């Protein structure tokens, strides 16, 4: 987050720019919508678990729309510091000005704060969410001496992909045990087909083949692929097809090449797509 952009985005939050006006398309897989709503009402923070591209972010947009709350999303990265989240002093000609970070802004505006891929952030930053994530629901701002108390409509959600088999990218127990955890997975074939059709406009047969192709790549998980093709990749391929790209080319560029760099694996995945289209 670059410092200079901060004031502008702070204004954006107040003017409601973070409100989602049109319903984002989301197809529930299980009871996640009901669970999230209940957690929201009960002021519990939520942890979304699941592989990449299975719809976590879309789910958050949908819930923000449903609950009519602004949604502030922070994509975490390994340089994300606590200051980046909470806020910092900036200097103007004659004075220093405090600028809220996304976290303080979300608390002040009673927004939904969504920290995407939380394990990517530095370990110390996960600790600043602790007082917000338990029943205290406060955000102490050390630098200004303020103690922000979250309103009943503030909601904290984080996401995490347990598929990474790295000890460095594991969520600490002290963090994870504060959340209501909702598990996401790839939707069933029928549902995934519906999603692909709806998102891309390809016809029934094409959507079915795309979904079948995804299942094939998921068969290869652990044998050279870290992950199979996600629903998101299917949507990408479908969109390319809708724009007139040949299905095999679409699968190659949107899926095979996106999944791996290993030439043999790409060749095998290409053969798999060729066997369907």
């Amino acid at each position, binding site marked *: 987050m*670059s*410092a200079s952009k901060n004031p502008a985005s702070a204004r954006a939050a107040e003017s409601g720019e973070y409100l989602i006006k049109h319903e984002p398309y989301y197809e529930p897989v299980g009871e996640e919508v009901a669970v999230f709503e209940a957690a929201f009402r009960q002021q519990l923070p939520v942890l979304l678990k699941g592989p990449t591209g299975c719809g976590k972010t879309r789910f958050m947009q949908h819930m923000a729309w449903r609950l009519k709350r602004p949604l502030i999303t922070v994509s975490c990265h390994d340089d994300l*510091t*606590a*200051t980046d989240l909470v806020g*910092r*002093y900036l*200097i103007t000609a004659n004075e*220093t000005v405090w600028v809220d970070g996304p976290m303080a802004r979300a608390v002040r505006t009673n927004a939904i704060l969504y920290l995407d891929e939380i394990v990517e952030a*530095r370990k110390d930053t996960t600790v600043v969410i602790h007082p917000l994530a338990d029943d205290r629901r406060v955000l102490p701002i050390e*630098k200004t001496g303020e103690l922000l108390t979250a309103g009943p409509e503030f909601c904290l959600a984080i996401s995490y992909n347990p598929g990474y088999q*790295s000890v*460095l990218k594991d969520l600490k127990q002290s963090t994870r045990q504060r959340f209501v955890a909702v598990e996401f997975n790839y939707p*069933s*074939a*029928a549902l995934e087909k519906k999603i692909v059709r709806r998102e891309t406009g390809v016809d029934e047969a094409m959507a079915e083949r795309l979904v*079948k192709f995804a299942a*094939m*790549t998921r*068969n*290869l998980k652990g*044998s*050279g692929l870290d992950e199979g093709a996600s629903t998101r990749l299917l949507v990408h391929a479908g969109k390319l097809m809708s724009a007139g790209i040949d299905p*095999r080319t679409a699968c190659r560029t949107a899926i095979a090449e996106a999944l791996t760099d290993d030439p*043999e*694996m790409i*060749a*095998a*995945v290409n*053969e*798999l*797509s*060729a*066997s*369907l*289209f």
Partner: protein
Amino acid sequence: MSNKSLTAAELEVKLDESLDPVLSSRRTAAALAKALADIERAQQDFVLHWVDIIIKTNAEMAYQFAARAPEAFRLMPVPAIEEWVIHAMDVYDKQGLYPGCAALGQLRAFAVETAEAAHGIALEEIRHVLELFVQGLAGRPLKVEEAAETCTDTATLFLPARLHKFAERHDNFRLYKAMAAHLWAQTWYGTWRLAPGTSPLTETLSTYRDPEKALRLFHALETLRLNACIARELPGLYRDMQEVQRLSGEMHYPAAWKQAIQRLTSLEAGVSDSLALLPTLHEGEIPAPFCFQGILRPDRAQQAMQERLTREKELFREALGQLGGETAQAKPETETGTTPNPRQYAIEQLLDPDHPGQFIFRLLLDGQPVQPLADMRTLMDSIIQDLGQIPEDYLVAAGAGGYRQPADEKRPEDVWKGTYHEEGAFLYNEWDHRRNHYRKHWCVLRELDVHPDSDPFVARTLRKYHGVLPQLRKTFEALRGENKLLKKQINGDDVDFDALVEARADMQSGMELSERLFTKLHKFERDIAVMFMVDMSGSTKGWINDAERESLVLLCEALEILGDRYAIYGFSGMTRKRCELYRIKRFDEPYNEVVRQRIAGITPQDYTRMGATIRHLTKLLNDVEARTKLLITLSDGKPDDYDGYRGEYGIEDTRMSLIEAKRAGIHPFCITIDEAARDYLPHMYGAVNWTLVDEVRKLPLKVSDIYRRLTL
């Protein structure tokens, strides 16, 4: 060197000298020399060069090569001849002298093949792609292996080693793909599936007058059915298969087959339909086979299936036992004294809403659906793939009691006992610099554990060095680094007031306001994984071994302070069939009492075959996530092994393995006590990536110091 061809007499002298061991009064160099005198000088040099190389492996092979060389030049260009020689040497390596000579003898066939190779394709090139391809399609993973017959035993797809049927390389690949897909379809669409109550295929066929013909007929019918399945579900693949078939000739079916075709291509058709059609079509003519269908080997398939079924049944029942045990713990026992009722397992078969005609299987425990354990799903799928269901007798949990070791579990120590059994071991290539080629799967490497020694060696070492230890710890603590507050940054966590005051003053005096007004906390992160590879060869016996062990003790002390991830492996072995790697500390193991005892237990073993060791450790390092990866060798001499792994050969192979490691992003480094090291180590490790410790007693302190400097 002149360009004039050598005369027969000149050649004879040379050949006599080098081929002496295999020459006799009846087999002289004169005949060879006469034939070789007619070819060009460059070709003669080539022959003499290779004779010298081959003779190091086997003199008879060299003779056979020399005898066929003139003809080889008539048949093939030079690169192809080299390939021919290397191929024959590979055969010799794997199978011995007679097959090796035979391979040289098949010169003509090889020449024809090479000519075809331009458009042909070798299975080896695409084996992995095919394996991934069939695994992606569906079902249990299948291996792909080369064999004379194209067939499958339901676990492995056997395909020809080369294909050059078509003029286009692309088409030959398609043929491979079609073959693999057809064999896969046999395992997936149930050619081998044993419905309950049916007799095995071999028995059914043996009731026919001509069982062999019945088998061909069965295969033809099944191919029709499988093609229809593929056409329905994998239209692109089907197109390719049809295309390949069209290139090798259209299919014609007798009129009598019309009904059969209709029946077999319908959605509900199964293997029972093919079997049912056998009697009606048995007397008639069988259409020519598809080019990709190969043959059926029911005997092999039945055997492989039977073995798998027995194994999986046992595993499945064990898994049920575990599953029942886990869920039982949640339930307190109601009455003591009576044995609790055995848990009731059942399988529920539900129609799959996504795939009409297919089923979803759900495991029920006492009437309630349960989530199968992690590996159980795969097991269930595999059983269903073989049987179409999970029979009743599978649903009895294996007896109460702990986990039982499956009978066929192999321990690495046992493998060597059955000579030349290579299961459970890792196979690595070895670089042969003379042939400029890898010897495939040449080294058999096993990981073993060092036997822990309760001797308080570590405590003794720590006492011995107690004078220098505090200093050692201090230097390493200094290395640990700290978080630094960086000042005057463009952006950061806090305002840098010193910079701000300065900037204000600058501005007052008319200068520009600096942008660098923030402080930023720089986190110190040391992201290093280091692998220590310790020489445990016989030559380290005595004080070198003591020094190595002391080095490891001090090193561990230092590394524990630093927090770097590290692993220690000792290496030794004798011959390529027995490369041994001793685990002293794995990456995920803490430095605990067991590790200390293993360090104490390091004892000199046999020889040092470094290449395979480095390749294996490279693989282990690759699995660790770290920004910097180091492979540090503690060595006392050149690579050396019993079976010719010495001198240039050993050095070149080690060098190649290090190059492979570097390619994988690993930094190799060598610490040696061999004073002759500068003759060969720079060549292996590179000019700066090694160091010599000239006094063995200094080694323990030096090693830590070298590591410190290396990672500064």
